[in-house]
């Protein structure tokens, strides 16, 4: 079993063969699924914890503070301690809550997150499922989460939760449109919906540079709409601490709250990963047309590292939004979508079609 940090295709293939030699094909599938499931679970838990820690430190940097410093070196264990605390906390349910739905909601949110993360290409050959309609799948699956939020808000039997859930519903339904349309722009440019194909298409230059103006516009719109879809930053109306105390998860405690919390951060990761894959070349290294030596140095950095550097960069940008801007109001959030993002997006698609037709790109 060769281990190549630049190309995982061979490795995964060999593993598959190794399993096949020892057990029946059906058994192999089950074992492989289990391994992949465990891997993703671990990844989500660990990366979620890392993101929470990163958010705290980044926010502290913005606010000229230090952030957590007490637990572990530089507070590295802080989020783990918090997670343990949440695990041990009592699960409180409002007396008149809809019990079944109340318990179901966090799982729906988590499941949606899991499903979306499945198709993301982390590196060459390091992708669980490579659908032909990968992008379509992600946009479809990521909007399931809102059902969880709506259920959570409704079943809590709390007026604040209900307002938060309704806001979230209106917001995510509208912004889903912008996310999809900005991705459609890039699909037109890439000519494929397959995520590995899109990454492969950016071998010589990232789509953000390749598609210049329309790609840039699509990127900005994707970032805004993506932030809105994760209920973060200036679009955190569903939680809106100063208005609705905690919005849709007011009544949740303990590990159920942790699910919502984790899902929010993993959703942020998904948005960042999609932005990376579609606009910033996925796991492809940074290449400049004719700078051979520079390109060569860049090639040395493993794709997995490239992927996470880009993802973290986008996540930092999203955090930057959150720690700078005031929150929008619910009608303004819809105005922004329907009066600004949507028309610009439609025009942008036309522009992109023109660019593709005239081959006016790198």
């Amino acid at each position, binding site marked *: 079993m060769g281990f190549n940090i630049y190309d995982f295709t061979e490795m995964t293939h060999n593993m598959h063969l190794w399993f096949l030699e020892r057990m029946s094909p059906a058994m192999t599938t089950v074992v492989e699924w289990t391994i992949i499931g465990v891997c993703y679970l671990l990844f989500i838990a660990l990366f979620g914890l890392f993101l929470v820690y990163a958010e705290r430190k980044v926010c*502290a*940097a913005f*606010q000229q*503070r*230090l952030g957590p*410093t007490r637990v572990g070196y530089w507070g590295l264990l802080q989020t783990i301690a918090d997670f343990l605390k949440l695990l041990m906390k009592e699960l409180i349910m409002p007396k008149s809550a809809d019990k079944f739905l109340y318990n179901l909601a966090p799982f729906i949110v988590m499941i949606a997150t899991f499903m979306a993360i499945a198709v993301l290409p982390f590196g060459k050959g390091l992708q669980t499922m490579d659908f032909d309609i990968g992008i379509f799948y992600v946009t479809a699956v990521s909007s399931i989460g809102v059902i969880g939020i709506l259920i959570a808000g409704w079943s809590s039997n709390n007026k604040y939760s209900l307002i938060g859930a309704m806001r979230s519903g209106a917001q995510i339904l509208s912004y889903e449109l912008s996310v999809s349309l900005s991705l459609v722009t890039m699909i037109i440019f890439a000519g494929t919906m397959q995520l590995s194909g899109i990454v492969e298409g950016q071998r010589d230059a990232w789509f953000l540079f390749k598609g210049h103006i329309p790609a840039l516009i699509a990127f900005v719109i994707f970032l805004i709409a993506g932030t809105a879809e994760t209920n973060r930053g200036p679009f955190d109306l569903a939680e809106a601490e100063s208005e609705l105390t905690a919005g849709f998860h007011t009544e949740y405690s303990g590990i159920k709250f942790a699910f919502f919390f984790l899902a929010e951060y993993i959703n942020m990761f998904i948005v960042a990963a999609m932005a990376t894959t579609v606009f910033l070349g996925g796991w492809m290294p940074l290449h400049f047309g004719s700078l051979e030596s520079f390109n060569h140095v860049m090639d040395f950095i493993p794709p997995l590292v490239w992927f996470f550097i880009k993802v973290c960069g986008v996540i930092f940008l999203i955090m*930057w939004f959150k720690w700078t*801007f005031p929150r929008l109001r619910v009608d303004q959030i819809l105005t922004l979508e329907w009066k600004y993002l949507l028309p*610009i997006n439609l025009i942008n698609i036309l522009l992109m079609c023109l660019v593709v037709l005239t081959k006016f790109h790198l």
Partner: protein
Amino acid sequence: MNAIFEYFGTIFKGVKTLLTGMKITGKYVFTPWKHVTQQYPENRETLKMFDRYRGEVIMPHNENNEHLCTGCGICELNCPNGSIEIISKMVVSEDGKKKRAIDQHIYHLGMCTFCNLCVKACPTGAIVMGQNFEHAVWDRSKLTKVLNQPGSKIAQGVKE
């Protein structure tokens, strides 16, 4: 046509203001990290309160275990919260006269609002404000303090 210009104008103006805001916050992230918070229990050694800081009422004693309090009770009168109680006793002075003196200067820290009125009113300057601010204790009764140390007496030359 004007409407279109206006439409894009508002977008550009809006984006510009957003970027200005991001510039301000970004400035603090990307300039060398100057944090403004203090790491409190760690900096105990270097943490120095201002001289006038009102942390608690204390009664300074000199090396002979002498204080300046005559037990006149003016501080007790001036305290708005009743956090000072003076228990006085009668002592016979050297020349045979009976004289009132302080037995216990009781100070209820839990009731004190640190208004400085007792210190200001004290005619002999026997009580002052101390700078210690770490008053947390496990038992409320520990907040009641006797300010004059046991066995202490009034310093020579303090006028009634």
